[in-house]
């Protein structure tokens, strides 16, 4: 057994002492080979306890440490700090959880003691096979690159720039603003988009910390959190941008109604998609292709809902907004809104809906709708409980589902982030980490993550900004996980099973040596590669096979 092992048993006040025969553990531990010092203490995590611990380590020149106390989840880091202060490598240390896993779950003191002793011995056996690990530190670049100059990208950029972060804002079109640009007004208060957007855009232009790239797209992304290098292509002219984090705010596309022929899009005249109608409306004159003012307009909801398999949750509200556009500009025109379920979450939207009804918009709930040509213009056929009904209108607006942007896949590949079955980018955890992704340092916000309205998008922009500001602080170095995996060149045969199971793209293949290699800065130490490697060429530091085998052998004694 290498070095001098110290074993400390914490009584945790009465918590452990009452349930476990601490002295017995002390005796047992003292008899173990390689153990140079054993002591118990009232409360090791207390200031006094930590002081005691430090003194003992130094006095007895202990090089390896076993602490039997509470769960490592509670105080591992506490004691690791003490180790460092006492110049004993904090990874030559193993905790035995004799509180949560022994004292507190067993009535019988004898049994609890016996189990505790097993755990202590296992920790003692294991720690003998621990290896000192050096703390890693990498300098980080605090800058941020935002992909997508829509409302979400703009908001995130502004928030970050306000905290003096350099922001690179990449927009593929020739102007900022994204889809929202096309809107004349936004629900529910029907205020002018321009007022809101123009202000933000000019803020961006005024802000020297934000560098805007229009007509640009990203071509290549290499590196990792704190040290990305992104190649941006602006009309063929390439720039390499160094950045610490990346925000994906690429927004959404609309469902292509040609994929759902029953709505007659492309076949029947005077059918507009929601976005086409926004443009038409913003032009100031709501007229059909024939230039005539429509006497009647049908708005059809849920276009693409079955096809895509989800409800975007926004289209209903936009469709109401369309109705309001029409009523404002052409009070005489009859507006019929065909819907299946009205999705009106959140406060205020219900009222928005009712007000619109009062303004004479006719909402008809249907099972399904089809649109066909007729000599009297578009003919709507809908089914509801009393069978089929027909009528003609002068104009049809298809309120279509929001879908993932068509280049989502290439972006996902470049950034090594995943997409869900709907094609939108996948968040790291739907509840706990809704704006971060599998790739550390890459964030998603707004409709890139899934259908959202403007408000929700801005909330996410804020969330991302917050995450980034707290993740990378200028001048502060990043401490990557040191308990990472590594691959022995001698054992590896290059089957790349580990590459396939790694969720973080932390393993790459060295074609020259024909072995796989772990990038220990990206690796998060989950050990999935270890589970997959038949030859044991992959090992995770502090969780090496041999350490686990030894632990198993000892607890089974």
């Amino acid at each position, binding site marked *: 057994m290498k070095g001098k092992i110290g074993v400390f048993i914490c009584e945790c006040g009465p918590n452990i002492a009452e349930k476990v025969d601490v002295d017995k553990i002390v005796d047992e531990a003292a008899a173990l080979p390689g153990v140079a010092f054993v002591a118990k203490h009232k409360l090791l995590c207390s200031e006094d306890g930590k002081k005691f611990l430090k003194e003992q380590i130094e006095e007895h020149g202990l090089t390896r440490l076993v602490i039997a106390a509470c*769960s*490592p*989840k*509670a105080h591992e880091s506490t004691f690791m700090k003490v180790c460092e202060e006492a110049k004993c490598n904090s990874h030559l240390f193993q905790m035995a*959880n004799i*509180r*949560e*896993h*022994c*004292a*507190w*779950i*067993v*009535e*019988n003191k004898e*049994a*609890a003691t*016996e*189990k505790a002793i*097993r*755990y202590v011995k*296992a920790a003692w056996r294991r720690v003998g096979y621990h290896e000192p690990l050096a703390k890693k530190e990498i300098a980080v670049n605090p800058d941020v690159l935002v992909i997508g100059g829509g409302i979400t990208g703009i908001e995130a950029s502004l928030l970050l720039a306000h905290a003096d972060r350099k922001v690179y804002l990449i927009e593929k079109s020739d102007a900022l603003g994204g889809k929202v640009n096309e809107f004349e007004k936004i629900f529910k208060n029907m205020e002018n988009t321009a007022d809101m957007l123009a202000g933000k855009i000019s803020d961006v232009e005024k802000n020297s910390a934000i560098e805007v790239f229009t007509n640009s797209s990203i071509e290549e992304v290499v590196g990792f959190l704190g040290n990305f290098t992104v190649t941006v292509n602006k009309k063929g002219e390439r720039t390499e941008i160094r950045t610490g984090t990346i925000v994906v705010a690429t927004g959404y596309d609309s469902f292509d109604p040609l994929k759902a022929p029953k709505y007659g899009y492309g076949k029947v005249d005077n059918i507009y998609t929601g976005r086409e109608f926004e443009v038409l409306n913003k032009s100031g004159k709501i007229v059909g292709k024939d230039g005539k003012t429509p006497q009647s307009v049908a708005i059809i909801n849920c276009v693409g809902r079955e096809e895509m398999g989800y409800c975007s949750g926004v289209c209903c509200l936009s469709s109401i907004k369309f109705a309001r556009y029409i009523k404002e500009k052409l009070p005489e025109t009859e507006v019929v809104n065909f819907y299946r379920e009205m999705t009106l979450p959140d406060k205020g939207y219900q009222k928005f809906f009712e007000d619109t009804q009062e303004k004479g918009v006719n909402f008809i709930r249907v099972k399904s709708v089809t649109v066909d040509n007729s000599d009297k213009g578009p003919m709507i056929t809908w089914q509801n409980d009393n069978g089929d009904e027909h009528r003609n209108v002068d104009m049809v607006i298809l309120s279509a589902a929001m879908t993932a942007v068509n280049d989502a896949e290439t972006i996902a590949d470049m950034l090594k982030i*995943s997409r869900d079955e709907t094609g939108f980018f996948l968040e*790291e*955890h*739907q509840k706990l980490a809704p704006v971060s992704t*599998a790739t550390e340092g890459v964030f998603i916000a707004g409709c890139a993550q899934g259908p959202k309205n403007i408000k929700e998008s801005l909330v996410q922009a804020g969330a991302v900004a917050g995450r980034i500001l707290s993740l990378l602080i200028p001048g502060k170095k990043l401490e990557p996980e040191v*308990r990472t995996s590594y691959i022995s060149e001698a054992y590896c045969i290059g089957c790349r099973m580990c590459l396939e*199971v790694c*969720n973080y793209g932390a393993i790459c293949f060295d074609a020259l040596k024909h072995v796989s290699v772990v990038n220990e800065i990206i690796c*998060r*130490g*989950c*050990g*999935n590669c*270890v*589970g*997959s*490697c038949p030859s*044991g060429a992959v090992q*995770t530091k502090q*969780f090496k*096979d041999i350490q*686990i*085998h030894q*632990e*198993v*052998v000892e*607890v*089974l004694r």
Partner: protein
Amino acid sequence: MEEYKPKIIGFLCNWCTYTGADLAGTSRMKYPPNIRIIRLMCSGSVNMTYVIKALLDGADGVLIGGCHPGDCHYESGNYKARRRVAILKKILNKLGYDEDRVWLRWISASEGKLFAETVTQMVDELKKKGPAPIENF
């Protein structure tokens, strides 16, 4: 003759089941002391060799605890674990070793109660089965 105490090795995911076990402790739930817990970062890091070794070294049962589907701290470690366990169990079964001595369970950090119940249940099951009839050489 003293009563038979089955030995269980628990390979528990640090983020869910292990924390669940902690919770069982902090909420002072009582369950049999038979389980010996080995802390790992993810159920997906459980190399089946560990399990085989544990069984051969005298464990009467092995419990592998991971996060519920969709909740894996590392995205999908639990699904990979499930495949490996399936394979191992099938093999054990074909070899005439009672595969039901190896348990895979999804227990979250908040399910201390479930953990305690699982262990209690496993111990009962194993007591019914008696010592694992396995020859290690």
